[in-house]
């Protein structure tokens, strides 16, 4: 046996086959993309091109460029009144993905229990297991709008649980929480003394109320590792730059691992992030305005077609139910792909609680969304309704 047992055990994406199908087909309208359809704002690109011309191509300090950490510290203070020292409480990572990996490896001993929502973003469970943790999936369901509540938390939290992963606004459901709702959740976290890993990468894409970082709530900063980045709000997915903020002990442990495995986040990404924070407010607002319109459009259209779809509070995903077609998620996605050449992601890719749902990304032009929803309607009329 050449491969480690842990990796062997890791669930391969059960829909790898479906993904290969999509990539192999021509002229597919893909609503299955997890990144913005906008290109990184030009001021960011131009600024980094200039830096490259000047020869900024080397390693940075492990923690990340001081200028960037400083800018993030200032940004969080101004936007959320969230104070993190750029020296001791922050680490620049290669995307939030690396931050997730680092924090899990930094805090989990073999067998430590960690709560992960179901459905949720694909990495949390496997990376927790890779780190030696024992994952307890917190089942949420459509009838609760896939929201975590204190009741659901209490069902799973106990004194033997070490940590919990939160992601809001959430991929794939688009769910987010008001300050009031987070306050209620925080009481459970505090009661059970949990470390909270909070992935808030979609924070800027919250449409109906202001986003509240959970670390700003009473009793939470000392137990929260706040993760954020630049991929979604600034369309910088390929630049691979994110950050983690948290208690000194945890950030220091994360930095220890990071310095050996990654050394530092790419300098280009970091330079781009500095410019993003400096001069991109209008670009972000414009993107957000566009996403919001698409959100209204697609939720309205899907419900019109007959696919029950709640209005998500954030991200650029909707998570409609396909239960009234009688088909399973993978079956629906495959058939839709073959018959109408529209790609969506089966809800089961995000956990077993995603069965009966599909994730549609509206990070696509209005033209694509109009065409895709027409094809979905056609498919539904000919194959769907029970």
């Amino acid at each position, binding site marked *: 046996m050449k491969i480690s047992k842990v990796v062997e055990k890791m669930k391969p994406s059960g829909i790898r086959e479906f993904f290969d199908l999509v990539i192999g087909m021509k002229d597919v309208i893909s609503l299955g993309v997890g990144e913005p359809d906008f290109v990184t704002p030009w001021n960011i690109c131009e600024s980094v091109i200039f830096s490259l011309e000047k020869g900024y191509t080397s390693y940075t300090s492990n923690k990340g460029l001081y200028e960037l950490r400083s800018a993030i510290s200032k940004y969080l203070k101004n936007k959320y009144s969230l104070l993190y020292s750029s020296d001791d409480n922050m680490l620049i990572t290669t995307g939030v993905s690396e931050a997730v990996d680092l924090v899990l490896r930094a805090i989990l001993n073999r067998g430590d229990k960690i709560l992960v929502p179901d459905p949720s973003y694909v990495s949390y469970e496997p990376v927790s297991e890779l780190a030696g943790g024992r994952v307890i999936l917190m089942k949420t369901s459509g009838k609760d709008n896939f929201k975590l509540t204190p009741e659901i938390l209490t069902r799973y939290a106990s004194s033997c649980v070490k940590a919990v992963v939160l992601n809001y606004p959430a991929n794939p459901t688009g769910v987010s929480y008001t300050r009031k709702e987070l306050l209620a959740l925080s009481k459970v976290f505090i009661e059970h003394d949990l470390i909270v890993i909070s992935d808030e990468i979609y924070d800027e894409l919250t449409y109906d109320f202001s986003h509240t970082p959970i670390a700003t709530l009473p009793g939470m900063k000392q137990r929260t590792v706040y993760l954020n980045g630049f991929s979604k709000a600034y369309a910088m997915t390929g630049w691979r730059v994110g950050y983690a903020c948290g208690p000194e002990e945890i950030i220091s442990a994360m930095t220890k691992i990071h310095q050996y495995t990654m050394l530092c986040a790419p300098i280009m990404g970091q330079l781009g992030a500095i410019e993003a924070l400096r001069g991109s407010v209008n670009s972000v607002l414009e993107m957000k305005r566009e996403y919001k319109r698409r959100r*209204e459009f697609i939720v*309205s259209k899907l419900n019109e077609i007959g696919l029950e779809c709640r209005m998500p509070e954030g991200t650029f995903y909707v998570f409609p139910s396909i239960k009234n077609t009688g088909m399973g998620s993978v079956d629906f996605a495959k058939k839709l792909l073959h018959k109408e050449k529209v790609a969506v*992601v089966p809800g089961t890719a995000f956990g077993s609680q995603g069965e009966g749902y599909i994730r549609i990304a509206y990070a696509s032009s209005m033209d694509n969304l109009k065409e895709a929803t027409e094809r979905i309607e056609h498919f539904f009329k000919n194959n769907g309704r029970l």
Partner: protein
Amino acid sequence: MKEVLEILEKDARTTPEEIAKMLKKSVGVVKNAIKKYEKEGVIIKYKTVINRDLLKDDVQKVRALIEVRVAPQRGHGFDHIAERIYRFPEVVSCYLLSGSYDLLLVVEGRDIQEVSSFVSERLATIDNVNSTVTHFILKRYKADGDILKRIERNHRIAISF
């Protein structure tokens, strides 16, 4: 309802029904807003932006930027003379500017000869036009916010988490 204008400016094909969905308003409200803007002249017309440079068989028209120095007229300022000039169909754009000259025109013709004739026979001869300087446009890169080049936008992999 200024958002309606924003949406139509991006894509004039957007129907009132689609706009209504995007803005979470009723179709009636959207249709009325559009009618009002049309009546008031806020919406002047619906247009398609075409890049003729990509039409290989087409005879390319010639465009020139023309700086015009005028003597403004008593009681009329610049408006009167600007109108006399822009009513020529060859004048595609007309702007009043601050600085070293007064009016900036974009003039279009079949060829250099036609544009030159227009300037010397029609434009320069107008009362109150003191002088003109003609710059022929060699290449248009971007016009009114539209980049005139097919930009390959979608490099994303077809499906990702």
